[in-house]
């Protein structure tokens, strides 16, 4: 078991696949996440591929304060991801709820629903910060040290 874990950690460190989920963001952070794969920032040169299925994802990038409508889906997506999985909360509203904190349809930051490994505050977060967050998430041990509360 340990060996498999080590191997998967080694492998995902080389070429992690990321999944992006909008849990109720204003789009600001989402376009910055997409911006990461475009020529100026080009996250793909590090072997990071953005793709669509949670079952193939190593890193979940979440934006936005969680709305009641997306809450269950977020949980579902998190559960579908294979171990070892890491979650990055991108944007102030993903970290704490931000300006949307206290809205009747918002539960708060991402960590009100699923555990978060790396928090990236900023409204909107710049692509360079997202890239460094991905790098930080990958350097974390999978037994859950990190920014985790």
């Amino acid at each position, binding site marked *: 078991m340990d060996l498999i874990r080590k191997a998967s950690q080694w492998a995902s460190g080389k070429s992690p696949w990321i999944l992006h989920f909008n849990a109720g963001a204003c789009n*600001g952070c989402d376009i910055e996440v997409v911006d990461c794969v475009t020529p100026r920032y080009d996250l793909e040169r590090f072997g990071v591929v953005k793709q669509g299925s949670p079952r193939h994802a190593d890193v979940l990038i979440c934006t936005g304060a969680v709305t009641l409508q997306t809450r269950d889906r977020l949980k579902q997506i998190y559960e579908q991801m294979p171990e070892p999985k890491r979650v990055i909360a991108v944007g102030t509203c993903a970290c704490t709820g931000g300006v949307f904190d206290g809205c009747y349809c918002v539960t708060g930051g991402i960590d009100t629903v699923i555990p978060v490994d790396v928090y990236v505050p900023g409204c909107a977060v710049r692509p360079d910060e997202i890239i460094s967050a991905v790098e930080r998430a990958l350097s974390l041990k999978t037994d859950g040290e990190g920014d985790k509360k």
Partner: protein
Amino acid sequence: MADDNKVIIPIGPQHPSLDEPASFTVTLSGERVDNVVIGIGYNHRGLEKACESRTYVQDLYIVERVCGICSHSHTSAFCMGVEQLAGVTVPDRAEYIRAIVAELERLHSHLLWLGVAGHEIGFDTLFMYTWRDREKVLDLLAAIGGNRINYSVNTFGGVRRDLDESIFAKITATLNELEKQINYYLELAQTELTLKARLSGIGCLSKEDALKFGATGPVLRAAGVAQDIRTAEPYGAYKNFEVNVITHTAADVFGRTAVRILEMLESIRIIRHCIKEMPEGAILAKVPRRIPEGEVIVRMEAPRGENIHYIRSNGTDKPDRIRVRAPSEANWHGMQHMLKGEYLADVPISIAAIDPCYSCTDRAITVNSDGTRKVTDWQSIRKYGIDWYKKRGLDMADIRLERGV
């Protein structure tokens, strides 16, 4: 489940690449779309209610985050409303700065759209090109407001920051580069037969239908209706100069593409004009903390169309009611009609063509009439569309692009 030969495909509500979630339930009859049911509201955060419990100044920051792509449009509308209620006149210089930022926002939004459209039809090179160019606009916005997105240029009574000659020079230089690129995209759209064949005749919404369903922005103008709030009901700096309304007669996705590209050129012209005519003077007028009682409706032209804000004040420092009618909300209504009779392969680009603030699927479940279920996702549908056309000889990979500036 529908009758015998019909297949129902629910798409949604999570999209791996862009924007907000929405779900679509597509009923197919053979390869043609029979009906579409659209489910939105995943991103409902309750902003209008939140605004009521906060002061106007706090609301400004919430309103800015209605949408991160047209953040300036929403704050502009909100500020105009509050200024009208308070009876404040905004200094001319501030109006011109607002117009410059609004047009830069239109540039970045349309470039973004062009890239997304390219992506949906399998023309990823275009996606990379336009988003590379878009970075230049974001640099300008960052230089003006200090942030790439949600630049908070507006405040009640004017703008937060003045622009000086060095920024104007920067803007002019960038615009020259962008103009070259955008002209190139225009030429590409007009001369590249593969692109034209792929975009023409799909997602049609005729002039009558566009009016009937209350479409707005480029979708309406591509149907041949010359409606633009900047000329129909000029506000701010637009009172002082003419805006050429771009229309097209194609009424399909190709028309919308052409309208958006030409609008970018028009935006460049407007920004140049504003810089040339920039009035001197103050950038901020004083607005009282308590806004006098009253109600107001503001209309303005956001990149996606007509943006309407309604504000009711009860004489305190908090609004009584705020209503935001974003342009995408108006464009959803025609969608069902637009997709009827289309090939499934055209669904992604047709949906993308209204430039909705949407985000779709991760999983789509295909329910065959015999009850078998197949799990697919938006990407597979997108891929299905691309392959479907490849088989018919339309391969975007055949298009060779110049390297550009």
